[in-house]
């Protein structure tokens, strides 16, 4: 099942397609086998292998009265 919230960046970095988490004692595959929970684990640890799929777009900070 494809991820919706996250995407993996291994290809961009030229990095590996499999990671082994010693702490979790499991292999994490940077492909369709990765689970949302594994992706969240990597993301929360600021891993370079996973990023948000849809980063929040910058909101318009202009005051309403300057909008034309």
């Amino acid at each position, binding site marked *: 099942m494809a991820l919706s919230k996250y995407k993996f960046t291994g290809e961009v970095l030229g990095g590996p397609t*499999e990671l*082994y988490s010693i702490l979790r004692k499991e292999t994490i595959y940077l492909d369709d086998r990765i689970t949302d929970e594994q992706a969240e684990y*990597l993301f929360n640890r600021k*891993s370079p292998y996973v990023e948000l799929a849809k980063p929040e777009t910058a909101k318009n900070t202009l005051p309403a009265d300057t909008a034309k």
Partner: protein
Amino acid sequence: MACVSVAAISRICGPNPGGIKTKMYVARVVDILTLPAATNKVVATDIVMKSGKAMVAWDIELDSGNITVETEGSVSNPSLKAGAVFKVARNSPGIDAAIDGAIGQELLILIPENSGNVRILGQLDKGAFLGYKGATGLKSADFAGKDLTVTWEGLFESPNYYTGVVPITAAP
């Protein structure tokens, strides 16, 4: 009331197992793109390999490994040296070729301890080095394989700890 009552006590320190686990991870430092800096001696961000590169896993003989750290030089102006010893069982063309290929290379080695910590031996600008002595043993009950040593000297601090993930296969 239950017939057996085992009330919990608060643990202060808990078990402290020695030794290292039966698998470690090895890479040439030239194959590593980034080794994040440590914060309070812990590297918590993942190591990233260069394109097409990965760390390799080596199986270690059970209860054969030991990581050491000690001061060297004068007592008023010391440096540190770290190292490790461990055994890899069996002599075979594949095992011998893999270990021969690591000799003389600057290496970064991740060694999981039985305590649950993972130690990093080697830096990108100063790798650890591997040495070994192989033997068949004299008798059938003797150990047949390699006694390996890791040497990493001239250090400012003891080996850091790693909590990241290990990149174990290369990108296609």
